[in-house]
């Protein structure tokens, strides 16, 4: 297993937000976490990324996350969040190269190593950014900028990519492009993706399996195609499938 969560409990100090969550993600898998606002999706992701303390166990590539150093964990797990503003004018290349931080040394005179350069170039090419590597990130549109952050995540070369609503504020074209990029990435080598998406349709199109959460606990862990619409409606407090069908009708 690439990633295994056993009886994970986590929160922000005023009682647990996530309670007793267990699941495992295999090589090449794409798991999406679904659930209404406040159900603990982001809290779970932050615990998996080592950003929040947790009870229970999170193991990545067989190693307990708590026992790993920050750098060691970052070589195994990356987190891509929703688009955030950038204030400093780094070039696209420099920004993507920062993804190599966890792999690099510390010396101030140290030059980028050959494997770093190769990883950065591959990530830029994979995301179609090689041609604009000298542009400043402050000059990019939201969609382009998120593509740079995707490239940076690839350059980090983790085994697990966690996604925290990375498609928010993006045009449809960039949403599809980003999820396709991640799908291709996950299919190669020992990798997997665990994602939270705001858009249920996007999540179901992207995911192989779905982890449905409600009030901090797991409601269902099933292949995306087998998700019970009745359960989804119960958790979201509305007729989700009916709403989607009505939306589809407008396109006929």
């Amino acid at each position, binding site marked *: 297993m690439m990633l295994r969560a056993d009886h994970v409990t986590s929160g922000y100090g005023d009682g647990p937000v996530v309670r007793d969550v267990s699941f495992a993600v295999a090589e090449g898998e794409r798991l999406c976490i679904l659930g209404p606002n406040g159900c603990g999706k982001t809290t779970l992701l932050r615990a998996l990324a080592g*950003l929040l303390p947790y009870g229970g166990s999170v193991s990545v590539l067989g190693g307990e996350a708590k026992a790993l150093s*920050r750098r060691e964990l970052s070589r195994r797990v990356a*987190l891509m969040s929703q688009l955030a503003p950038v204030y*400093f*004018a780094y070039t696209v290349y420099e920004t993507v190269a920062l*993804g190599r*931080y*966890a792999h690099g040394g510390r010396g*101030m005179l140290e030059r980028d190593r050959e494997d770093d350069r190769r990883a950065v170039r591959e990530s830029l090419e994979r995301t179609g950014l090689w041609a604009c590597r000298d542009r400043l990130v402050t*000059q990019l549109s939201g969609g382009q900028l998120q593509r740079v952050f995707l490239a940076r995540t690839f350059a980090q070369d983790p085994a697990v990519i966690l996604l925290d609503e990375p498609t928010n504020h993006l045009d449809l074209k960039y949403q599809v492009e980003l999820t396709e990029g991640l799908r291709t990435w996950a299919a190669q080598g020992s990798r997997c993706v665990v994602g939270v998406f705001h858009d249920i349709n996007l999540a179901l199109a992207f995911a192989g399996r779905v982890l449905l959460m409600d009030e901090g606990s797991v409601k269902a862990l099933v292949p995306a195609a087998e998700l019970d619409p009745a359960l989804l409606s119960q958790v979201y407090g509305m007729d989700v499938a009916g709403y989607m069908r009505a939306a589809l009708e407008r396109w006929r």
Partner: protein
Amino acid sequence: MRTRGKMALLAVVSVLALLAGVAVGSVSIPPGDILSILASRLFGAALPEDVGAVYPAMVMDMRLPRVLLAFLTGAALAVSGTVMQSVLQNPLASPFGLGVSSGAGMGAAIVIVTGLAAGRLRMLVLPAVSLAFGLGTVLLVIWAAGRIDRAMSNITVVLVGMVASLFFNAVMSFLATLSPVYAQRINLWQLGSFSMREWSSVWVLLPVTAAGIVYFMRYSREMDVMTFGEEQARVMGVDMRRCKGRLIAAVAVLTGTAVSFVGVIGFVDLIAPHVVRRFFGASHRRVLPASALFGGAFMVACDLAARTLTPPREIPIGTITALLGAPFFLYIYFTGRRRGGP
């Protein structure tokens, strides 16, 4: 132009600024004479006979220590500003804006008024108290900003810093009113001055500034990562708690030491990083040394203006940096925004 070329050009400009700082004043000293005097002092070369008799004392005892102190102060403040902006992911942050300089200045004012700085310990007590107050201020501002706004947005941090800065300045004014004996000294402190400074100040600030720059250079990659946000930095492998704490403490030490010698001087710490990023990009490996050179040269130029614009009176250095710095900052900021940079 490539980075090395630009850095070399900036170094040449810095040397020229230092030379101009020593050459220009109530009595002008030809640059050739300055170089001869320096060669004679440093390497024991014979002093040419046509060098004015008063020049060696003027250069070595008055102008050179003053100009070097100005350069070191400018470098220390500019580098501190660069680090502060990166650590707080806030291009509007600076030690002055966050009240660190005013806090350190208030510490110094308390030392002056209470007479703690009397005697032989003066060289140690003043810097130590200044940097303790500087550090205390930055912790206070960050704590208060975090309480007001959990996300610690740029605007909140800047506003809280401004409140702290105004408050500490008010305390300094109050102390000056209470003790008329020290009023002039405290008032001078509030706007900074390089007058009446001796070599001893240079010998303290030189190693502190050099060590500070080397220390920050070690963290240049971490700071690059930090500019994209604290959570992202952690996810990318930076031990934020350790790095942030160390860097902020080092900024307080550097700013506090500089302030303890020359008083509160604003703007250079805010504008230097912006100017430098425009020409050198955002990478700290380039921005840190370039900020030091630019900040140093800018401060020497400001000091030159301070003592030559209204002779025989001297304009406080903080007034000059603000008069030049504010419009310059707006120009750089807005033209930079049009080009896409911050």
